[in-house]
């Protein structure tokens, strides 16, 4: 299972790609595999304020629904609207075309609290 080195991760199985003051967020390969076929993504609203560790989106498989937590605080800058019609992209390409939303960070220091790839891998392997 793949956990790209350049990404940050959360214990809730999200990945975060930091680009200056903006962060792109999705779910990890481990998460999509555990969920199974993803059939619906409830996206946040662009412009909404989100707080770190608060729920801001949902991912549903045929089996269950899972909350997506904002890894960092900020304002939703963009959402991946292609997931409205083709949510299965999250299964196929979780770190690329299957991204879920972008956040403009209000506190860049929060990024320091995220896991790096090796710490996340250790977390998953201890599950």
């Amino acid at each position, binding site marked *: 299972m793949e956990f790209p080195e350049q990404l940050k991760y959360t214990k809730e199985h999200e990945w975060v790609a930091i680009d200056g003051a903006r962060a792109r967020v999705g779910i990890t390969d481990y998460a999509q595999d555990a969920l199974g076929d993803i*059939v*619906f993504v*409830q996206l946040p609203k662009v412009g909404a304020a989100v707080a770190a560790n608060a729920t801001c989106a*949902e991912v549903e498989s*045929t089996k269950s629904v899972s909350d997506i937590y904002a890894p960092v605080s900020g304002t939703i800058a963009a959402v991946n609207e292609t997931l*409205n019609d083709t949510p299965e992209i999250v299964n196929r390409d979780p770190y690329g075309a299957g991204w879920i939303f972008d956040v403009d960070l209000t506190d860049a220091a929060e990024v320091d609290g995220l896991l790096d790839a090796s710490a996340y891998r250790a977390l998953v392997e201890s599950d």
Partner: protein
Amino acid sequence: MVEFGGWEMPIQYSSVLEEHRACREHAVAFDVSHLGSLHVQGDGALDLLQSAFTNDVGRIAPGQAQYTHLLDPADAHVVDDIIVWWLADDDFIVMPNASNTSRIADALAGDHSCTVEDITMSRAIIAVQGPEARKTLAPVVTSDVERFHVAPTTYGSADGFIAGTGYTGEDGVELHVPREAAAETWRAVVAAGIQPAGLGARDTLRLEAGLPLHGHELGPGITTLQAGLGWVVRWDKGDFRGRDALLAEKERGVDRKLRGLLVAGRQIPREGCRVSIDGKEVGAVTSGNISPMLQQGIALAFLPPGVSDGTQVEIDIRGRTATAKVVKPPFFKRA
């Protein structure tokens, strides 16, 4: 793997959606050995089943199968939904849901003119379902049994049965395979080009076909009439368990009825989601999921009687409102 009715069962082998589509387009195999098999045999077997179940076994003949209900004698709730295989004159196999087998055996016990034997552990049941199920099965077993018929057959040197029954809304058969031939038969089915499917696809397939699941659309507090399955009850066949209580409900009129809900988009109603019409709460979802064929949310829900097809409803999905309309299942019909 998950625990289901005392059995360890796989949710999926590859992907729920892929297995679902394979069943609609080709054929899949489910290991449904968890279903119960009660062998009812003896002079009084037919009378026993007639007095226990709602449907009229007299309307079929040896070599045929029938869907039926066992009711609670006091309030007529559906204790279980059951398939009866009429093998020969006084020889039947009664197939309850996994968790209900001992309850049904108890309900049938005490009649001295026939025996009721739980043979569940002596056989496997492999359900092969899909438009190409029979064709693809040809190298494994002769599968020309008609829909809702059952016939003796052999698996290798072992004697078993094959029935034209299933739970997916597709054509297909169910194989009753003696335990000693089960693994070999399963491998032969897979080798014939039929992919295995798990409990996840079994649930999305039955829901898309509008078929009830015990514990959701049938069970304590739910009668056959509320579930919209009045055709399973034969009032003219004589007395049966729960008849008086069910007749009383029929005469006073049901206060709710199971309906299909088709969501306008992909939002997925789940069990327990509240359903409203014009802002007034009228019922709740009993089962809901995505329809893999329609790519829309679908649900079964109990609504007040008299709501017409096409009525728009709102479903509260964890605080968000999804718009749906009342439809007559099945949700998916082959074009």
